[in-house]
């Protein structure tokens, strides 16, 4: 069985000469340190761990660090990870990081599909690492599993992308509840029909993972497009009967703008990738209808 665990796919390592002075020196030293250490750990650990495992899988992971010599050119590293039943893509990444290369960088926290931090591009599709069973990936034992950062977002390092733009779009739809009036008394509830709660229920499940935005062709081409998650957030409030007509009107104004709902070309890619099964495209369509009805009123 092979004990070679990482392989560099590009020739980027040698292209550090362009740098000069202190920092280049320092980063070369740091890079050496990185490589020596990785060599050592890899050899030792790969031998013991992998020999014991019955099966291994091969994961190919995107690497990039703007600061570290040899990593500022994007490349892929390949890791061989022992496979166990129930293993997720996130488990494989954690294993690779903790046993082979502690500089491997990705976001994760809850490991139960609720914090939304580990949306990744796995075998060509946006998925949550923690929710994706390796066994569910086609031919996982014989082919390489490819793990990349979410497309169409700027890469900060390795699998970490910049989420600022996504957050900005979410916040652009005024994502907060604004009831016309509250019931009298601190302990009085604003009654909501069960049906109305059912209607908005799916839209409230969004975990801000960004998978939908990353899968959307329109968002990729139009940076100002609000995108599926933000429009879904607008839907959540526009359809909540506890907000008044005026507020709904304002909400429709926001989503009707040039870069709002009308940009959507019903390609369903967002709906397909959403890990929370939110019917995004449907919600966008419904808001289009609302917005038409809304405009008719004035004619």
């Amino acid at each position: 069985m092979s004990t070679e665990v990482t392989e560099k796919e590009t020739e980027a390592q040698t292209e550090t000469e362009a740098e000069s002075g202190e920092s280049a020196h320092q980063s070369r030293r740091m890079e050496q340190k990185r490589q020596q250490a990785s060599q050592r750990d890899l050899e030792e650990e790969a031998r013991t761990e992998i020999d014991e495992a019955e099966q291994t899988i091969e994961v190919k992971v995107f690497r990039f660090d703007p600061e570290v010599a040899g990593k500022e050119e994007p490349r892929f590293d390949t890791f061989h990870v022992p496979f166990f039943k129930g293993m997720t893509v996130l488990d494989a990444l954690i294993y690779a990081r903790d046993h082979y290369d502690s500089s491997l960088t990705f976001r994760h926290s809850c490991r139960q599909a609720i914090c939304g931090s580990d949306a990744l591009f796995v075998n060509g599709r946006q998925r949550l690492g923690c929710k994706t069973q390796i066994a569910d990936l086609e031919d996982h034992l014989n082919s390489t599993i490819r793990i990349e950062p979410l497309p169409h977002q700027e890469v900060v390092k390795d699998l970490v992308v910049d989420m600022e733009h996504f957050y900005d779009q979410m916040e652009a739809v005024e994502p907060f509840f604004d009831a016309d009036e509250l019931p009298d008394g601190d302990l009085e509830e604003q009654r909501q029909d069960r049906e109305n709660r059912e209607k908005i229920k799916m839209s409230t499940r969004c975990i801000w993972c960004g998978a939908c935005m990353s899968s959307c062709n329109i968002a990729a081409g139009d940076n100002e497009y609000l995108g599926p998650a933000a429009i879904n957030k607008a839907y959540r409030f526009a359809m909540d009967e506890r907000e008044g007509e005026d507020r709904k009107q304002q909400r429709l104004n926001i989503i009707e703008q040039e870069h709002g709902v009308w940009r959507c070309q019903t390609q369903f890619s967002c709906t397909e990738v959403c890990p929370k099964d939110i019917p995004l495209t449907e919600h966008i369509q419904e808001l289009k209808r609302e917005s038409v009805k809304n405009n008719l009123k004035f004619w």
Partner: protein
Amino acid sequence: MYEHDVLVIGGGGAGLRAAIAAHEEGADVAIVTKLHPVRSHTGAAEGGINAALRDGDSWEDHAYDTMKGSDFLGDAPAIETFAKNAPEEVIQLEHWGMPFSREDDGRVSQRPFGGLSFPRTTYAGAETGHHLLHTMYEQVVKRGITVYDEWYVSRLAVTDHDDPEDRECHGVVAYDIKTGEIAGFQASGGVILATGGLGQAFDHTTNAVANTGDGPAMAYRAGVPVEDMEMIQFHPTTLPSTGVLISEGVRGEGGILYNDQGERLMFEYGYANNEGELASRDVVARAELTEVNEGRGIEDEYVHLDMRHLGEERILDRLENILHLAEDFEGVDGLEEPMPVKPGQHYAMGGLEVDEHGETCIDGLYAAGECACVSMHGANRLGGNALPELLVFGARAGWHAADRDLGEAQIGTGPSAKSEDEDVDTPVSPGAIDAGDEDVAADGALVEPTEVLDHHVTAEEQRVESLLEKDEGVNHAEVRADVQETMTQNVNVFREESNLKEALEDLRVARERYQDVYVRDPSRTFNTDLIHTIETRNIIDVAEAITLGALAREEFRGAHWRAEHQERKDDEWIKHTMLAWNDGNPDLYYKPVILEGEDKTYEPKERSY
């Protein structure tokens, strides 16, 4: 240097509530958090939020249930404040638009939960925490509160007076995870720690990877005593492979526990003849492990939780998320099969000692949420009581830090609240091995706020520099794994003296190895290697505090079971175990439990469910 009136560390439920409260009070408040707020672990809470909202229920009953649930180790002023304020806080969430589950008349639904004498748990499907977290974050956005997200707070800027009770907190040192920039954050009003749980001290936990006890560890080293740390709640229903939680809501709705003989174990073996599956968590967790230890477990590891009889409609209406969790993380279809479950670390009842205004003994330093111990959960937290706690005490900490007068606190804090000292027989001397990176070096010279901040920023820069500079050594992941393993082996649901001592020895070894730790990733950009390394130090400190407390408390109370001491010893042990860092030489002492409420005294009674 960044400056605000109030700084809230952590953007989970407690942090968001505190920030909103401080803002309400007119303070310029900022949240500094290592995860974006919506990524906080509050989002994982499933079951619900307790509050006495309906006719037939009362805050007094909620308070009594909580005191009884705590096995009479809770402080009455905290519990009463909590039970009185919970309804208002829950309805406030409702006014903020939280999508609660509803009854036919449009009001918020409530369901039964373990240890409650009334079905007072409000909920939003089986994803209550997600909705609570997002609803509150929306309010933070609405108010334009500043959030520094993906900033890691690694140190508190505290004056270095000899006596912790003379110390003052002027802010924190944090670094920007994206760029590696280390900066001081000054707070003129107060710093509120809301850093959440410490489940990562164990290897089978429902907690997120980010729950590493940073707040308790930092403040403990800065001089705030930690209280009742041995009181760890093990949740009876977690999925065996991952620790993912199956909500108590399943049992609340009527889910049944079976052993491998197909027997309804809670009744069959008399663990809880009245309440059965709805007995309090400690009781159910022990019942399950007893079944496993006596050979009636399934695959020698777990038991079954069955909800099939509830019917698809009810399950989809109230527990849909459970179906997804069982399917995604265990490959089991809850509509067709019973779900495998076993106990897992879930919640820290102990934490930083605070009074009912959320303040610690260090002036200007507050704590709220799971990292704090206002002492309302005592030896056992009731399900559904943590979320209202973080609302009630998060809000109070926020108001107080922003200067609202909340009256005189009844709960005393700091070493001067001690009633007696204790000497436990420890196999190794706990505490620091290398005092090199002390968070406070007490000589009383540092007093001026900016000076204090500068000092701590420099110290932190040096620490990070040396971690990055070092060329070889130990990988933090190895040390962390050792700690998690020994804690799970030795400081779990069942505790024996010899195991606790073994754990302390292992933790000493971990400390020694940690001195040699190094960060392999040389980058300043998003260096998770560095973060995990710093977190690991915190995990060691909280693990040691848990184990020391467990060794000291020679009785059986709530979640704390001791092989050698199989009874609750009210005469001796109605007192809190306190641990003060004392510059690396931890002092163990006690302080009395306050059983006197406003109108009545809570009399300890045998708990039977």
